[in-house]
């Protein structure tokens, strides 16, 4: 009996010790948060976490708030945020792409941010338009990105004004054995709606119509319409059974390395490709993606990165203060640019960086005719079927039948 009671006593002691160790990880949450003066939790992807940390700490020290920046992998950030918010264990602020807004709003995961007219004017108008959803501003933008034509100036000194010019130059280079591909535009086995969209829009195709207020209208689907079929006939002419300019074998993984390996003189890509191109030591230039001759301009999608205030955060007042009044400072925008070189959404920061990085202005110019990437939840239904239709048509399938069935699939998935 004595042994047993000694055992019980020891077990209890150990239990308390273990509980103490377990609780030690999060002293601020288990103890009174009031005493600590509040805590602000920010979720961002790895790259941006590193850039944000010093600024978050400065904000925290200046205001007596504990600020924690936590890294979540980019590909699961949105779903993790939505799930965690629902359970009440989410952050106060999340950093992500603007096309998440539709889904975040329908899940009640983010709150609008009230920006003053002066604050709104400090942003690039496209960036502000992108974070506006159903008439409300839902995020504070900090960076923009869009596709452009990156050209090896040694192989192709002149920027092509049309796709036809580009194809002619590329074919001449190919005939001279200087390159093996006319154009590096990633298609992949299952297509890539984002990268084909400039050509598709130039040839007259749309994804959605617009409402009178200028928002995308999910009820007015542009895929499967005669215009979209006509647009894809032009794309099919460049495909594997046509000119052989667009190929499914050029994928997200190899398109940039083919360009840096001088296998092609033209690359359609975004600001994220530039560091690889610079590393390869190529002489390059950035120009807008050309459209088809005699057709409309190519309109690449413009995406915006933004800060959102979580609707179910613990510390919404400070989160609003941070997002509305602190994120919109040029210093932070410059630091985020240095972590990942995309054009800042803040005009002041852009002007400051323009002198040191001439590519920024060129990318911005390439996105001048761009279309804001749709943030409506219906867009989720478009990516996959549209991409597959693209891949099938580039592989030689009939544009009319393929696009009609893709349109039906998409329409069936939109509520």
């Amino acid at each position, binding site marked *: 009996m004595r*042994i047993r009671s000694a055992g019980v006593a020891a077990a209890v002691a150990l239990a308390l010790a273990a509980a103490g160790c377990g609780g030690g990880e999060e002293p601020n949450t288990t103890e009174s948060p009031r005493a600590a003066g*509040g805590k602000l939790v920010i979720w961002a992807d790895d790259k941006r976490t590193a850039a944000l940390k010093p600024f978050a700490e400065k904000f925290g020290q200046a205001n*007596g708030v504990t600020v924690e920046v936590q890294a979540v992998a980019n590909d699961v950030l949105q779903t993790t945020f939505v799930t965690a918010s629902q359970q009440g264990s989410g952050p106060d602020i999340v950093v992500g792409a603007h096309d998440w807004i539709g889904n975040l709003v329908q899940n009640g995961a983010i709150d609008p941010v009230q920006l003053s007219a002066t604050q709104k004017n400090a942003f690039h108008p496209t960036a502000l338009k992108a974070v506006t959803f159903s008439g409300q501003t839902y995020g504070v933008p900090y960076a923009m990105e869009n596709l452009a034509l990156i050209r090896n100036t040694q192989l192709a000194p002149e920027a092509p004004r049309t796709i036809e010019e580009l194809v002619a130059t590329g074919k001449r280079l190919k005939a001279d054995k200087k390159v093996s591909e006319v154009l590096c535009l990633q298609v992949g*086995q299952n297509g890539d709606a984002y990268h084909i969209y400039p050509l598709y829009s130039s040839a007259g195709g749309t994804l959605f119509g617009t409402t009178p207020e200028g928002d995308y209208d999910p009820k007015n689907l542009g895929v499967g319409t005669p215009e979209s079929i006509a647009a894809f006939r032009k794309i099919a002419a460049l495909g594997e059974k046509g000119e052989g300019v667009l190929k499914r074998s050029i994928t997200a993984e190899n398109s940039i390395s083919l360009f840096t390996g001088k296998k092609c003189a033209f690359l359609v890509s975004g600001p994220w490709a530039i560091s690889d191109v610079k590393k390869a030591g190529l002489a390059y230039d950035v120009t807008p993606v050309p459209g088809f001759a005699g057709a409309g301009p190519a309109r690449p999608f413009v995406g915006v990165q933004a800060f959102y205030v979580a609707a179910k955060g613990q510390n919404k*007042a400070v*989160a609003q*203060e941070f997002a*509305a009044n602190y994120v919109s400072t040029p210093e932070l925008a410059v630091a985020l640019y240095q972590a990942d070189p995309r054009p800042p959404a803040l005009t002041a920061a852009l002007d400051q960086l323009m002198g040191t990085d001439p590519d920024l202005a060129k990318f911005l110019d390439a996105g001048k005719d761009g279309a804001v990437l749709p943030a409506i939840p219906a867009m989720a239904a478009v990516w*996959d079927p549209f991409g597959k239709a693209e891949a099938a048509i580039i592989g030689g399938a009939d544009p009319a039948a393929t696009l009609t069935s893709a349109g039906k699939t998409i329409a069936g998935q939109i509520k």
Partner: protein
Amino acid sequence: MENREFGAGPATPVPHRGPVPPRHHAGPVTVTGLAVKVVVLGLTVGIAVWAAFPLVDAGAWAGLTLLVAATAGLCYLYLTRRYVPAKYLVPGTLFLLAFQVLPVLYTVATAFTNFGDGHRGSKQEAIVAIQTASVTQVPGSTEYALAVATTGDPATGPLVFLLTDPATGTVSVGDAGGLRQLAAEDVTVDAGGRVTAARGYTLLTIGQAGARSEEITNLAVPTAGGAIRSAGLSRAYEGKAQRTYDAGCDCIRDAESGKVWTADADLGAFVAADGERLAQGWKVGVGFQNLTRVVTDPNISGPFLRTLIWNLCFAVASAGGTFALGLLCALALHSPRVRGRTIYRVLLILPYAMPSFAMLLVWRDMFNTDFGLLNNLLGMHVDWFGNAWSARAAVLLVQLWLGFPYMFLVATGALQAIPAQLTEAASVDGASRWQSFRRITLPLLLVALSPLLIASFAYNFNNFNAIYLTTEGAPFPADNPSVGATDLLITYTYRLAFGGQGAQYGFAAAISIFIFTLVAIIAAVTFRRTRQQEEVYS
């Protein structure tokens, strides 16, 4: 068959079920035994205490009761000398309940709801989200510079907003009762007009305000046009909720357009007369709708059978192919005449040591039509993933390469366990090498390896990565982008449930019930067959 072992026939002794006197057949208490017991029980209780805090915080009393009961039960069980069989069974049973039974029950329960994007929370949460999202600034209204203050203690005193009108510079104090102007001599303001000190009020620092965040967010100072709310901690605006919930009609009304969205308890959404739905919905039970959709939706039921057949072929070919190749290698290296067996074995096991995740991606790139290693090396121009049969052959080839080292490993082990005398005896009796392999080695091997083969089959039946990281289901017929030639049921349903309109967990759960049933039937049939086999050979 089982009856022979477990049946209650007259010949089998019936286990004694009467009250058994407690038997103290345990040996003397050793120090090590006691120490292990104390440490393990202590850890258990420690984990329980650690888990109790969040449960208390969340007020989850049912969960807390369960936790206390389970922990107390475990402590009692291992501190008493009785219930010896239970001491062996309880830990496994607890884990079975927690990690098998509960998830299955939860999945089944989810299958009867519309849980998914846009339908995650409760109706109340949806209403709050709709109202918050519709708060807009009153047109032409003032933007105030804000300072949060209190008349009492910064941590507990009643909160007020000190608001400066930027145009006139007048300062007002606002609380739930309304707005009152303050005398100019009582306040000090900074260059931006923000109040820095006010007689009778204590200003909150951002840190102090952060601790009372929720109260500040909820504080609205009523005005004629709406209410003044905080935008952060340094600005305030006059805003008005455009859409409000009316409990009388159970609907949402838009103040500007007068449009009404009525709650639909079957859909879990507010629906207008013209059929327009508000995006923010809530979770409701939908009965068998998800399950019937699998059967009735022609887009799902149509390709289901074809996908199932390929799925079965894929699983059988993956398990069988790797086993055949692994066994062949094991047999070849089993012969003592082979020199340098160890080095061969190490080389053959290498693919198993590499992370399959990365290898699948490498293989995918090797199958690239124009730039892939395979076509370049062999001087071919095969569109591997563009053609149904070549794509299927390609994924099976990848599976073979990834899987055979494992089968080689286990077959080598099993071969070494078969006594050499058996085959020697057979050859003395005049059996050919093939005969002795076919009649002696293989049956003995299968007794040991058939559970592994079944496990390999079940694993490959749901081998999501093998398809998703290589072909992603390609090639897809031009007229149907929802199901491809190499799609398994799991990749196909993943696309249905998560590809289109965000995540539809309810529907995904319904499909997993179907897949679970299929795999369970196949496994049950196979286990029955193996048991017969074991009886034949034992």
